[in-house]
């Protein structure tokens, strides 16, 4: 990836709050048109990284450029070309749905007329046209999220930053948000998002970094990461609670790698069905046995020894 093509470039990027190092010398680049993700558990440093990219939070040390510009010196210029969907809703409860978009268009110095045109277009895009005169209070969580996304798009940004875009939403609302984000990606908008949901990362991201404890643990496409850090299939076995500790390593030779979790045992193998047969031949009787494909959750477990959502 050439630098001229990088919308975001970070080298040895670090953020400290007093004694706490929230982001520790990370390197990454985001290319134009890409959907790029930061995957990691809460507290991994994802939000701090996003706030530095958004030009709101000063960089402690290292290099960071957005559109080739330094956020410390060109904050307003950078932000004029960015859309930001923050983790917690920051919608204005004193204004209506449409007024929230109108005043935001003014913050980007658009005319009232242009703001009105875009507000109506975006309310259509996020399927909130019927709610335009309602107060924000009256919206559901999923609707608020969509309104926040519409607001972030009012300046037709080249780069959209989304911090945990679907946290707290029910499955139906999540799919609607994913669908809208997918459409934006198709239109050429560069997406940068943080998530602790592996399915979200797999759905939306062309490329991602796995973050853990302020560092980047791995980088690649979801497929590459799975190929590199996991096996094709995973056999999940559940045993009666008192039997699981007694297994004591006697499954070890049945898979390339074994993870023993509190409630189940994961056998990483190229052929899950063959592994089940082998388990049964040993006379073991798990309560349930499930063969599935590897996911980013398995990658995270391999890299950190912990699951994504504790």
């Amino acid at each position, binding site marked *: 990836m050439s630098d001229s093509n990088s919308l975001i470039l970070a080298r040895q990027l670090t953020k400290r*709050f007093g004694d706490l190092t929230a982001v520790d010398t990370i390197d990454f680049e985001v290319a134009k048109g890409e959907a790029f993700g930061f995957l990691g558990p809460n507290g991994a440093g994802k939000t701090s990284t996003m706030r530095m990219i958004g030009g709101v939070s000063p960089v402690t040390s290292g290099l960071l450029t957005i559109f080739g510009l330094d956020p410390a010196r060109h904050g307003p210029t950078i932000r004029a070309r960015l859309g*930001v969907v923050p983790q*917690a809703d*920051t919608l204005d409860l004193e204004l209506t749905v449409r007024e929230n978009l109108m005043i935001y268009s*003014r913050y*980007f110095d658009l005319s009232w007329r242009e703001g009105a045109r875009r507000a109506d277009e975006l309310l259509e895009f996020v399927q909130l046209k019927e709610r335009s005169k309602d107060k924000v209070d009256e919206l559901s969580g999923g609707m608020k999220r969509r309104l926040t996304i519409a607001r972030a798009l009012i300046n037709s940004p080249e780069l959209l930053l989304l911090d945990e875009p679907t946290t707290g939403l029910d499955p139906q609302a999540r799919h609607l948000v994913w669908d809208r984000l997918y459409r934006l990606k198709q239109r050429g908008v560069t997406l940068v998002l943080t998530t602790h949901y592996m399915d979200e990362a797999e759905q939306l991201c062309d490329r991602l970094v796995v973050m853990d404890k302020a560092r980047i643990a791995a980088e690649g496409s979801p497929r590459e990461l799975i190929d590199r850090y996991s096996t094709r299939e995973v056999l999940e076995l559940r045993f009666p609670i008192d039997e699981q500790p007694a297994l004591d390593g006697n499954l070890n030779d049945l898979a390339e790698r074994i993870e023993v979790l509190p409630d189940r045992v994961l056998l990483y193998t190229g052929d899950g069905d063959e592994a089940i047969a082998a388990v049964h031949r040993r006379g073991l009787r798990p309560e349930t046995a499930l063969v599935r494909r590897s996911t980013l959750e398995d990658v995270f477990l391999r890299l950190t020894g912990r699951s994504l959502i504790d």
Partner: protein
Amino acid sequence: MALMAGTLHVVEYNVLVFRRIWRGSIAVSFFTPLFFLAAMGVGLGGLVNRSSGGVNGVPYLDFLAPGLIAAACVQTAAIEAMYPILARIMWDKTYEAALATPVTISDLIRGEVVWITIRMFIVAAMFWLVMYLFGVGHSLASLLAIPASILTGLAFATPIIAFTATRRNDNGFAAINRFVIIPLYLLGGTFFPIAKLPLALQVLAWATPLAHGVALARGVVLGNVSASDAALHAAVPLAYFAAGLIIARALLMKRLAK
């Protein structure tokens, strides 16, 4: 963005919010001075005038009304600089939303100060009108009581915004009201001359912007203030305003640009 565009948009935001409440707010701005001047100025003032022939050689209503304009602006400024600002910092986080756009922290502060100025203008202009209807301040110069009162309010607005920028909840606001705004209102020269206070309190009163603002507003309405006194009475509130502005900006930077 042009230097003042962001500031203008923050003012526009406040106008958008105010649109919902402007009728009630303007009605309050008219009736409050009406009741105050009727009760304190005419009612209580009648007693004062009969027993002592007015205050400092003028009827009590004439003494009282101009100072009340300044005090009303201080109260407006204090309220606007507390709850709405804290809501935007931490309850609704709308400043965070604004700062994700080209709007800067300086725009936020300038915009809020301009808006508080507009709010105080409404309050002071209505108050002046009521005062005029009561027969006080029938001179062109008495209109200067409006800017004098707004300046007095601004001397409280920026220090209180600075205070608000440090708050994690609204507990401190009641304390500011109880221990700063109300004592100053009662003892700062609005209702009786500061010279009637014990000496220590006189010194304290003259260190605050309210005493000077009240003296300035009263002076221009009664037409009995010298240019040099007027300059001093303007300089003290202005100094509070300027210092408050610098500190408020620094504290908001610390709070919002972490």
